[in-house]
Protein backbone atom coordinates (compact mmCIF):
# COMPACT_ATOMS: atom_id res chain seq x y z
CA UNK A 1 0.00 0.00 0.00
CA UNK A 2 1.56 3.32 -1.06
CA UNK A 3 2.05 5.92 1.68
CA UNK A 4 0.20 9.21 1.62
CA UNK A 5 3.10 11.18 0.15
CA UNK A 6 3.37 8.83 -2.79
CA UNK A 7 -0.38 8.98 -3.31
CA UNK A 8 -0.27 12.78 -3.27
CA UNK A 9 2.57 12.82 -5.78
CA UNK A 10 0.63 10.50 -8.05
CA UNK A 11 -2.41 12.71 -7.76
CA UNK A 12 -0.33 15.76 -8.62
CA UNK A 13 1.15 13.95 -11.62
CA UNK A 14 -2.40 13.35 -12.80
CA UNK A 15 -3.22 17.05 -12.54
CA UNK A 16 -4.50 17.53 -8.99
CA UNK A 17 -2.91 20.84 -7.96
CA UNK A 18 -4.24 20.60 -4.42
CA UNK A 19 -2.24 17.43 -3.84
CA UNK A 20 0.99 19.40 -4.02
CA UNK A 21 -0.32 22.05 -1.65
CA UNK A 22 -1.12 19.28 0.80
CA UNK A 23 2.39 17.86 0.40
CA UNK A 24 3.88 21.26 1.21
CA UNK A 25 1.63 21.62 4.26
CA UNK A 26 2.70 18.20 5.52
CA UNK A 27 6.42 18.80 5.15
CA UNK A 28 7.07 22.54 5.43
CA UNK A 29 7.63 22.55 9.19
CA UNK A 30 10.07 19.61 9.45
CA UNK A 31 11.87 20.78 6.33
CA UNK A 32 12.38 24.33 7.62
CA UNK A 33 13.45 22.97 11.00
CA UNK A 34 15.99 20.68 9.33
CA UNK A 35 17.46 23.40 7.13
CA UNK A 36 17.55 26.00 9.90
CA UNK A 37 19.27 23.61 12.31
CA UNK A 38 21.71 22.42 9.69
CA UNK A 39 22.78 25.78 8.26
CA UNK A 40 22.10 27.65 11.50
CA UNK A 41 20.15 30.38 9.75
CA UNK A 42 16.42 30.71 9.97
CA UNK A 43 16.01 33.41 7.33
CA UNK A 44 17.75 31.43 4.64
CA UNK A 45 15.98 28.27 5.77
CA UNK A 46 12.65 29.48 4.38
CA UNK A 47 14.21 30.40 1.05
CA UNK A 48 15.93 27.05 0.79
CA UNK A 49 12.76 25.20 1.77
CA UNK A 50 10.90 27.05 -1.01
CA UNK A 51 13.67 26.17 -3.43
CA UNK A 52 13.40 22.52 -2.37
CA UNK A 53 9.67 22.48 -3.09
CA UNK A 54 10.22 24.14 -6.47
CA UNK A 55 12.82 21.50 -7.36
CA UNK A 56 10.35 18.81 -6.33
CA UNK A 57 7.70 20.45 -8.50
CA UNK A 58 10.03 20.57 -11.50
CA UNK A 59 10.98 16.92 -11.12
CA UNK A 60 7.49 15.73 -10.19
CA UNK A 61 6.88 14.03 -13.53
CA UNK A 62 10.01 11.93 -13.06
CA UNK A 63 9.08 10.83 -9.54
CA UNK A 64 8.32 7.13 -9.18
CA UNK A 65 6.87 5.89 -5.95
CA UNK A 66 8.58 2.49 -6.21
CA UNK A 67 11.98 4.22 -6.14
CA UNK A 68 13.07 6.34 -3.20
CA UNK A 69 10.53 7.48 -0.61
CA UNK A 70 9.25 11.00 -0.93
CA UNK A 71 10.61 12.03 2.47
CA UNK A 72 14.16 10.84 1.79
CA UNK A 73 14.02 12.34 -1.70
CA UNK A 74 12.97 15.69 -0.24
CA UNK A 75 15.74 15.64 2.38
CA UNK A 76 18.26 14.62 -0.27
CA UNK A 77 17.36 17.67 -2.38
CA UNK A 78 17.36 19.94 0.67
CA UNK A 79 20.74 18.59 1.87
CA UNK A 80 22.34 19.33 -1.47
CA UNK A 81 20.90 22.83 -1.53
CA UNK A 82 22.16 23.41 2.03
CA UNK A 83 25.65 22.18 1.17
CA UNK A 84 25.76 24.54 -1.82
CA UNK A 85 24.54 27.40 0.33
CA UNK A 86 27.21 26.74 2.97
CA UNK A 87 29.88 26.47 0.31
CA UNK A 88 28.85 29.78 -1.23
CA UNK A 89 28.56 31.39 2.16
CA UNK A 90 31.95 30.05 3.21
CA UNK A 91 33.45 32.09 0.43
CA UNK A 92 31.72 35.25 1.56
CA UNK A 93 31.84 35.05 5.32
CA UNK A 94 31.69 32.68 8.24
CA UNK A 95 28.42 31.16 9.44
CA UNK A 96 26.03 33.46 11.22
CA UNK A 97 26.10 31.52 14.45
CA UNK A 98 23.45 33.38 16.37
CA UNK A 99 20.89 33.81 13.63
CA UNK A 100 18.64 30.97 14.71
CA UNK A 101 18.69 32.24 18.24
CA UNK A 102 18.25 35.93 17.51
CA UNK A 103 15.73 35.91 14.71
CA UNK A 104 14.33 32.41 14.82
CA UNK A 105 13.11 32.38 18.34
CA UNK A 106 11.95 35.98 18.57
CA UNK A 107 8.36 34.92 18.22
CA UNK A 108 8.92 32.07 20.65
CA UNK A 109 10.47 34.58 23.00
CA UNK A 110 7.39 36.80 22.87
CA UNK A 111 5.12 33.83 23.34
CA UNK A 112 7.23 32.68 26.23
CA UNK A 113 7.04 36.08 27.95
CA UNK A 114 3.28 35.92 27.85
CA UNK A 115 3.40 32.38 29.17
CA UNK A 116 5.75 33.44 31.94
CA UNK A 117 3.36 36.07 33.21
CA UNK A 118 0.38 33.77 33.03
CA UNK A 119 1.97 30.63 34.37
CA UNK A 120 4.67 31.77 36.75
CA UNK A 121 2.75 31.24 39.98
CA UNK A 122 1.43 27.83 38.99
CA UNK A 123 4.31 26.25 37.12
CA UNK A 124 7.90 26.58 38.40
CA UNK A 125 9.21 25.47 34.99
CA UNK A 126 8.15 28.85 33.63
CA UNK A 127 10.22 30.86 36.12
CA UNK A 128 12.25 33.53 34.23
CA UNK A 129 15.56 32.11 35.53
CA UNK A 130 14.63 28.63 34.41
CA UNK A 131 13.54 29.91 31.01
CA UNK A 132 16.75 31.88 30.64
CA UNK A 133 18.85 28.88 31.57
CA UNK A 134 16.96 26.73 29.11
CA UNK A 135 17.42 29.33 26.41
CA UNK A 136 21.15 29.51 27.09
CA UNK A 137 21.43 25.75 26.88
CA UNK A 138 19.52 25.72 23.59
CA UNK A 139 21.82 28.41 22.20
CA UNK A 140 24.86 26.44 23.32
CA UNK A 141 23.54 23.26 21.73
CA UNK A 142 22.76 25.02 18.45
CA UNK A 143 26.22 26.59 18.45
CA UNK A 144 27.83 23.23 19.18
CA UNK A 145 25.86 21.59 16.34
CA UNK A 146 26.88 24.33 13.91
CA UNK A 147 30.53 23.78 14.81
CA UNK A 148 30.45 20.10 13.91
CA UNK A 149 32.02 19.15 10.58
CA UNK A 150 29.37 18.94 7.87
CA UNK A 151 29.72 15.19 7.36
CA UNK A 152 28.84 14.59 11.02
CA UNK A 153 26.35 17.42 11.45
CA UNK A 154 24.08 16.32 8.63
CA UNK A 155 23.38 12.77 9.88
CA UNK A 156 23.10 14.01 13.46
CA UNK A 157 20.45 16.59 12.57
CA UNK A 158 18.54 14.03 10.50
CA UNK A 159 18.63 11.54 13.36
CA UNK A 160 18.25 13.53 16.56
CA UNK A 161 16.21 16.49 15.34
CA UNK A 162 14.24 15.06 12.43
CA UNK A 163 13.87 11.56 13.82
CA UNK A 164 14.74 9.71 10.61
CA UNK A 165 15.70 6.04 10.85
CA UNK A 166 19.25 4.90 10.09
CA UNK A 167 18.04 3.38 6.82
CA UNK A 168 16.36 6.60 5.78
CA UNK A 169 19.47 8.62 6.63
CA UNK A 170 21.61 6.21 4.61
CA UNK A 171 19.22 6.74 1.70
CA UNK A 172 19.30 10.53 2.00
CA UNK A 173 23.09 10.70 2.26
CA UNK A 174 23.76 7.76 -0.06
CA UNK A 175 25.95 6.12 2.57
CA UNK A 176 26.31 2.56 3.81
CA UNK A 177 24.37 1.76 6.93
CA UNK A 178 27.56 1.14 8.94
CA UNK A 179 29.03 4.48 7.91
CA UNK A 180 25.84 6.29 8.89
CA UNK A 181 25.80 4.65 12.33
CA UNK A 182 29.43 5.39 13.06
CA UNK A 183 29.09 9.01 11.90
CA UNK A 184 26.10 9.59 14.15
CA UNK A 185 27.90 8.05 17.13
CA UNK A 186 30.99 10.14 16.37
CA UNK A 187 28.87 13.30 16.04
CA UNK A 188 27.22 12.64 19.41
CA UNK A 189 30.59 12.07 21.06
CA UNK A 190 31.89 15.36 19.65
CA UNK A 191 28.78 17.13 20.84
CA UNK A 192 29.18 15.65 24.32
CA UNK A 193 32.64 17.20 24.53
CA UNK A 194 31.45 20.57 23.29
CA UNK A 195 28.59 20.61 25.79
CA UNK A 196 30.76 19.62 28.76
CA UNK A 197 30.50 23.08 30.40
CA UNK A 198 26.70 23.01 30.17
CA UNK A 199 25.74 19.43 30.95
Amino acid sequence: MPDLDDELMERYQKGDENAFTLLVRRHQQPLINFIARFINDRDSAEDLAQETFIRILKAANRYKSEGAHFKTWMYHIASNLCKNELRNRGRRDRYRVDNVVNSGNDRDGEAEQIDLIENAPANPAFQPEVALERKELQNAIQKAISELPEQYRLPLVLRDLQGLSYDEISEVLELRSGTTKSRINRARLMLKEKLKPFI
Partner: protein
Amino acid sequence: MNCQQAEEHFSAHLEDTLDYQTLQDFESHLTKCEACQGEYARFQDSVNAVQQLPQIEPSPYFMSALQQRIATEDRETGSLKDVVTTRWQQLLDAFRRPTWAFSGAIALILAAAGTYFYQDLRPTPVAPAPRTEQIATSPEVFPVQQSRRVGGDTNRLLQGSVISTPTQPMQQRYMLKQVSYTTTSTSGGL
Protein backbone atom coordinates in the same frame (compact mmCIF):
# COMPACT_ATOMS: atom_id res chain seq x y z
CA MET B 1 36.35 -4.48 25.80
CA ASN B 2 38.38 -1.34 26.46
CA CYS B 3 37.18 2.25 26.94
CA GLN B 4 37.58 3.21 23.29
CA GLN B 5 35.62 0.17 22.12
CA ALA B 6 32.93 0.89 24.68
CA GLU B 7 32.64 4.46 23.40
CA GLU B 8 31.98 3.15 19.90
CA HIS B 9 28.90 1.35 21.22
CA PHE B 10 27.34 4.27 23.13
CA SER B 11 24.71 5.02 20.46
CA ALA B 12 23.88 1.37 19.84
CA HIS B 13 23.43 0.78 23.57
CA LEU B 14 21.32 3.91 23.93
CA GLU B 15 19.09 2.78 21.08
CA ASP B 16 19.08 -0.82 22.24
CA THR B 17 20.48 -2.29 19.04
CA LEU B 18 23.48 -4.21 20.42
CA ASP B 19 23.66 -7.95 19.90
CA TYR B 20 23.70 -10.17 22.99
CA GLN B 21 27.45 -10.76 23.18
CA THR B 22 28.40 -7.09 22.63
CA LEU B 23 25.79 -6.04 25.16
CA GLN B 24 27.32 -8.37 27.76
CA ASP B 25 30.83 -7.08 27.05
CA PHE B 26 29.71 -3.44 27.09
CA GLU B 27 27.82 -3.68 30.37
CA SER B 28 30.53 -5.68 32.05
CA HIS B 29 33.07 -2.99 31.05
CA LEU B 30 30.81 -0.22 32.29
CA THR B 31 30.34 -1.85 35.71
CA LYS B 32 34.12 -1.96 36.12
CA CYS B 33 35.02 1.44 34.58
CA GLU B 34 33.86 4.54 36.43
CA ALA B 35 35.22 6.88 33.76
CA CYS B 36 33.09 5.20 31.11
CA GLN B 37 30.05 5.30 33.39
CA GLY B 38 30.44 9.08 33.66
CA GLU B 39 31.06 9.54 29.95
CA TYR B 40 28.08 7.41 29.05
CA ALA B 41 25.83 9.38 31.43
CA ARG B 42 26.93 12.67 29.86
CA PHE B 43 26.48 11.13 26.40
CA GLN B 44 22.87 10.27 27.23
CA ASP B 45 22.24 13.75 28.65
CA SER B 46 23.61 15.55 25.62
CA VAL B 47 21.63 13.37 23.18
CA ASN B 48 18.47 14.05 25.20
CA ALA B 49 19.20 17.78 25.23
CA VAL B 50 19.63 17.86 21.44
CA GLN B 51 16.44 15.88 20.89
CA GLN B 52 14.53 18.34 23.05
CA LEU B 53 15.47 21.41 21.02
CA PRO B 54 12.29 23.24 20.02
CA GLN B 55 11.01 22.81 16.48
CA ILE B 56 11.39 25.86 14.29
CA GLU B 57 8.05 26.81 12.81
CA PRO B 58 7.58 28.30 9.34
CA SER B 59 6.48 31.91 9.12
CA PRO B 60 2.79 32.46 8.42
CA TYR B 61 3.76 33.80 4.99
CA PHE B 62 5.65 30.72 3.91
CA MET B 63 2.91 29.18 1.80
CA SER B 64 1.90 32.43 0.10
CA ALA B 65 5.56 33.26 -0.59
CA LEU B 66 6.03 29.82 -2.13
CA GLN B 67 2.95 30.19 -4.30
CA GLN B 68 4.19 33.58 -5.45
CA ARG B 69 7.58 32.10 -6.33
CA ILE B 70 5.97 29.26 -8.24
CA ALA B 71 3.86 31.77 -10.18
CA THR B 72 6.99 33.79 -11.01
CA GLU B 73 8.83 30.68 -12.19
CA ASP B 74 5.78 29.73 -14.24
CA ARG B 75 5.84 33.08 -15.99
CA GLU B 76 9.58 32.94 -16.63
CA THR B 77 10.00 29.34 -17.74
CA GLY B 78 6.51 28.28 -18.76
CA SER B 79 4.38 26.06 -16.61
CA LEU B 80 6.52 24.12 -14.16
CA LYS B 81 4.13 21.25 -14.40
CA ASP B 82 4.59 20.99 -18.13
CA VAL B 83 8.32 20.68 -17.85
CA VAL B 84 9.31 18.33 -20.64
CA THR B 85 10.99 15.29 -19.26
CA THR B 86 11.86 13.33 -22.35
CA ARG B 87 15.10 11.43 -22.44
CA TRP B 88 16.54 14.05 -24.77
CA GLN B 89 15.61 16.78 -22.36
CA GLN B 90 17.24 14.87 -19.50
CA LEU B 91 20.37 14.41 -21.58
CA LEU B 92 20.47 18.09 -22.42
CA ASP B 93 19.94 18.93 -18.76
CA ALA B 94 22.89 16.75 -17.87
CA PHE B 95 25.08 18.59 -20.35
CA ARG B 96 24.04 21.91 -18.86
CA ARG B 97 25.87 20.95 -15.70
CA PRO B 98 29.40 22.42 -15.76
CA THR B 99 31.12 19.08 -15.06
CA TRP B 100 29.30 17.31 -17.86
CA ALA B 101 29.78 20.19 -20.26
CA PHE B 102 33.52 20.21 -19.51
CA SER B 103 33.78 16.42 -19.90
CA GLY B 104 31.85 16.60 -23.17
CA ALA B 105 34.16 19.32 -24.52
CA ILE B 106 37.26 17.28 -23.56
CA ALA B 107 35.79 14.18 -25.25
CA LEU B 108 35.12 16.14 -28.44
CA ILE B 109 38.65 17.57 -28.47
CA LEU B 110 40.13 14.10 -27.94
CA ALA B 111 37.97 12.64 -30.71
CA ALA B 112 39.04 15.40 -33.13
CA ALA B 113 42.72 14.99 -32.20
CA GLY B 114 42.45 11.20 -32.56
CA THR B 115 40.95 11.47 -36.04
CA TYR B 116 43.64 13.94 -37.10
CA PHE B 117 46.54 11.76 -35.91
CA TYR B 118 44.98 8.59 -37.29
CA GLN B 119 44.87 10.16 -40.72
CA ASP B 120 48.48 11.24 -40.31
CA LEU B 121 49.70 7.78 -39.33
CA ARG B 122 47.70 5.82 -41.93
CA PRO B 123 49.89 4.67 -44.89
CA THR B 124 49.09 6.85 -47.86
CA PRO B 125 48.04 4.94 -50.97
CA VAL B 126 50.85 4.84 -53.55
CA ALA B 127 49.91 7.08 -56.37
CA PRO B 128 50.86 5.85 -59.82
CA ALA B 129 54.14 7.39 -60.87
CA PRO B 130 53.16 10.05 -63.30
CA ARG B 131 56.12 9.61 -65.59
CA THR B 132 56.63 5.86 -65.32
CA GLU B 133 55.47 3.39 -67.88
CA GLN B 134 55.05 -0.27 -67.11
CA ILE B 135 55.99 -2.23 -70.15
CA ALA B 136 55.63 -5.78 -68.94
CA THR B 137 54.23 -7.55 -65.94
CA SER B 138 56.31 -9.32 -63.37
CA PRO B 139 55.69 -13.06 -63.01
CA GLU B 140 54.27 -12.54 -59.49
CA VAL B 141 51.27 -10.79 -60.94
CA PHE B 142 50.07 -14.02 -62.52
CA PRO B 143 50.69 -16.87 -60.13
CA VAL B 144 50.48 -20.42 -61.37
CA GLN B 145 47.20 -21.27 -59.63
CA GLN B 146 45.44 -18.35 -61.20
CA SER B 147 46.60 -19.36 -64.64
CA ARG B 148 45.54 -22.97 -64.14
CA ARG B 149 42.06 -21.95 -63.17
CA VAL B 150 41.57 -20.39 -66.53
CA GLY B 151 41.99 -23.79 -68.16
CA GLY B 152 42.84 -24.18 -71.83
CA ASP B 153 46.48 -24.54 -72.82
CA THR B 154 48.09 -25.45 -69.53
CA ASN B 155 51.55 -25.87 -70.98
CA ARG B 156 51.55 -22.43 -72.47
CA LEU B 157 50.36 -20.95 -69.22
CA LEU B 158 52.95 -22.83 -67.27
CA GLN B 159 55.54 -21.33 -69.53
CA GLY B 160 54.44 -17.91 -68.35
CA SER B 161 54.85 -18.88 -64.71
CA VAL B 162 57.73 -18.43 -62.34
CA ILE B 163 59.44 -21.51 -63.73
CA SER B 164 60.76 -19.80 -66.77
CA THR B 165 64.07 -21.06 -68.15
CA PRO B 166 66.93 -19.06 -69.64
CA THR B 167 66.67 -21.14 -72.84
CA GLN B 168 63.35 -19.62 -73.70
CA PRO B 169 63.32 -16.85 -76.31
CA MET B 170 63.54 -13.31 -74.93
CA GLN B 171 60.05 -12.25 -75.97
CA GLN B 172 58.46 -15.15 -74.00
CA ARG B 173 60.13 -14.30 -70.72
CA TYR B 174 58.45 -12.07 -68.19
CA MET B 175 60.44 -9.06 -67.29
CA LEU B 176 59.84 -5.66 -65.84
CA LYS B 177 61.07 -2.78 -67.79
CA GLN B 178 60.57 0.69 -66.55
CA VAL B 179 61.37 3.80 -68.34
CA SER B 180 61.66 6.86 -66.22
CA TYR B 181 61.47 10.08 -68.09
CA THR B 182 62.46 12.13 -65.11
CA THR B 183 65.97 10.65 -65.09
CA THR B 184 66.46 10.91 -68.81
CA SER B 185 69.33 13.16 -69.75
CA THR B 186 68.35 16.48 -71.22
CA SER B 187 71.55 16.49 -73.26
CA GLY B 188 72.66 19.89 -72.23
CA GLY B 189 69.24 21.48 -72.42
CA LEU B 190 67.23 22.72 -69.47
